[in-house]
């Protein structure tokens, strides 16, 4: 009994389409491929599945690569063509039901269409991510605000100067000075913007691997449910739009493995009730007590707190991790605690103080410059990344947990609030002794 054709767009249909396109008779092709015409007839009607050697012989006779007759490849291509058809503008009506014919008869055109469809999808993802970055990037936002402020001041002041012929000398001098100051501001802000856009076009025009990872985590609210139970990391990160580079996928695998270890040491079922008690009692947040309670290190606790699932009554925590060179290796921002996208962070962060004195944790109430300024309690600690290693080289790592002051409790007695920033470039604290370079925003 002949087998029914299990799927559309099988190799048989394609062979038939290609043969007729070449104006070859069934008998001619059968002869060229070394099979009987009746057998070829069965194949063409998808009543027989051709063996690999027969398919190769037919492909040779049709002068096409054997892969072009591979059923799965053809199906994948048809799926892509259907996706392309779904984007058709009104007035264009692609013959979706004849996609298999297109693939069979015009494999080159079909492949080109599929390629264009994949390209369009990739470009849409890039545009989406770039516009997302533009909307949320603190550096860009600060640059643009600075430019608009300076332009507003220059325009209004210059108009006063131009339109007031009888302006007293002292007013004229004041407004000239203001225009001069604001034009300098404008030049600096424009320069910063150019630097930002230059950096943005580096790499694949998109992002450094670490940024790709963070952008992937950000989309998930910095919580990946699979780390609670463990899983197939490779499968989890495959096909994720944000993890475009192999380097980012490698970082993601490492991150997931570490987060899974953290989750096992601090299971959500045990951690959440304790946290709820801490934050609803309002007795003040002491991570050292939590670490002792669960028998874990502070750094591990910080990582876990910053990547927990959202839960009413439990605040969102910010986290910054740096290596021994001070380079930020992980950034989890929260509102009011913005992290620099490129370049170094504020050198006054308790993170760096901890790095200078490993295994001696730092606690400090801090205020991050911003509109409005954000008040937090920062807890930082540094230590060996692998504490069980005897042989050099030793890799150091510092972690800083940032908790909103509104939930972390008041500063301790004698604890002065430290004035910090994100990075020098966007920090308005002009007289800061740790300043590395001039700011683009005025104080």
């Amino acid at each position, binding site marked *: 009994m002949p087998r029914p054709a299990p799927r559309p767009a099988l190799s048989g249909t394609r062979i038939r389409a290609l043969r007729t396109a070449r104006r070859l008779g069934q008998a001619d092709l059968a002869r060229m491929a070394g099979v009987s015409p009746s057998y070829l007839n069965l194949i063409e009607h998808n009543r027989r599945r051709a063996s690999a050697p027969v398919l190769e012989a037919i492909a040779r006779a049709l002068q096409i690569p054997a892969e072009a007759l591979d059923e799965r490849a053809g199906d994948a291509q048809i799926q892509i063509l259907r996706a392309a058809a779904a984007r058709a503008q009104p007035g264009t009506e692609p013959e979706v039901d004849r996609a298999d014919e297109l693939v069979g008869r015009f494999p080159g055109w079909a492949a080109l269409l599929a390629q264009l469809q994949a390209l369009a999808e990739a470009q849409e993802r890039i545009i989406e991510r770039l516009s997302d970055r533009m909307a949320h990037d603190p550096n860009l936002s600060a640059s643009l605000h600075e430019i608009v402020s300076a*332009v507003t001041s220059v325009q*209004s*002041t210059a108009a006063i100067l131009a339109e007031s012929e009888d302006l007293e000398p002292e007013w004229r001098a004041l407004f000239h000075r203001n225009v001069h100051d604001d034009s300098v501001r404008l030049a600096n802000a424009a320069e910063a913007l150019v630097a930002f856009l230059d950096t943005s076009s580096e790499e694949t025009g998109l992002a450094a691997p670490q940024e790709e990872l963070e952008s992937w985590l950000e989309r998930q609210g910095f919580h990946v449910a699979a780390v609670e139970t463990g899983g197939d990391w490779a499968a989890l990160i495959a096909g994720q739009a944000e993890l475009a580079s192999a380097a980012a996928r490698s970082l993601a695998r490492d991150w997931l493995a570490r987060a899974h270890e953290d989750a096992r040491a601090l299971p959500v079922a045990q951690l959440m009730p304790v946290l709820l008690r801490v934050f609803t009692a309002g007795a003040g947040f002491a991570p050292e007590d939590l670490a002792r309670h669960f028998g874990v290190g502070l750094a591990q606790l910080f990582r876990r707190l910053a990547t927990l699932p959202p839960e009413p009554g439990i605040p969102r925590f910010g986290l910054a991790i740096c290596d021994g060179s001070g380079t930020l290796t992980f950034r989890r921002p929260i509102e009011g605690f913005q992290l620099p996208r490129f370049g170094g962070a504020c050198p006054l962060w308790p993170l760096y103080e901890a790095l200078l004195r490993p295994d001696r944790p730092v606690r400090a109430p801090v205020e991050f410059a911003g509109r409005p300024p954000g008040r937090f309690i920062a807890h930082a600690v540094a230590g060996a990344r692998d504490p069980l290693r005897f042989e050099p080289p030793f890799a150091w790592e510092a972690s800083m947990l940032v908790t909103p002051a509104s939930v972390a409790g008041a500063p301790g007695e004698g604890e002065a609030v430290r004035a910090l920033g994100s990075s020098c470039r966007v920090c308005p604290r002009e007289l800061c002794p740790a300043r590395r370079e001039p700011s683009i925003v005025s104080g």
Partner: protein
Amino acid sequence: MSHDGAEASGGGGTADVAPVSGRRGAGRRVLVVEDEPNISEAIRFILRRDGWEVAIEATGTGALARIGAEAPDLVILDVMLPGASGFEILRALRGQPGTARLPVILLTAKGSAQVREQAMAAGASMFIAKPFANAELLAAVRQLVGV
């Protein structure tokens, strides 16, 4: 033009000029809530020349108290302010019976339709995007106070 003993002070600070009597403002009071000193300086000059009495507040946190204490005839309110945003201040003003109808011009660096809608929803009497023309701001102040 006379500034009635106007004195300019340096450093983008508090240059002072008395309102010119006999102009449209006629001594009515405008509070400018703006953290950019050179912008508030220019606004102050433009309005005082037209006869308005102008006070300046540079923080969001201080704005509500100033408005309560000084009862201005109109407020020019920037959106991006240290302490509290212009939207927050505006919503607070609209929630109080004494200031529910106070004319407020919202100034913002973002002129998108979305921000404009947000401004109107928050209760702005008028919305002006930065950078603005001096004449446009002056006309808005005159119109809202009805002079």
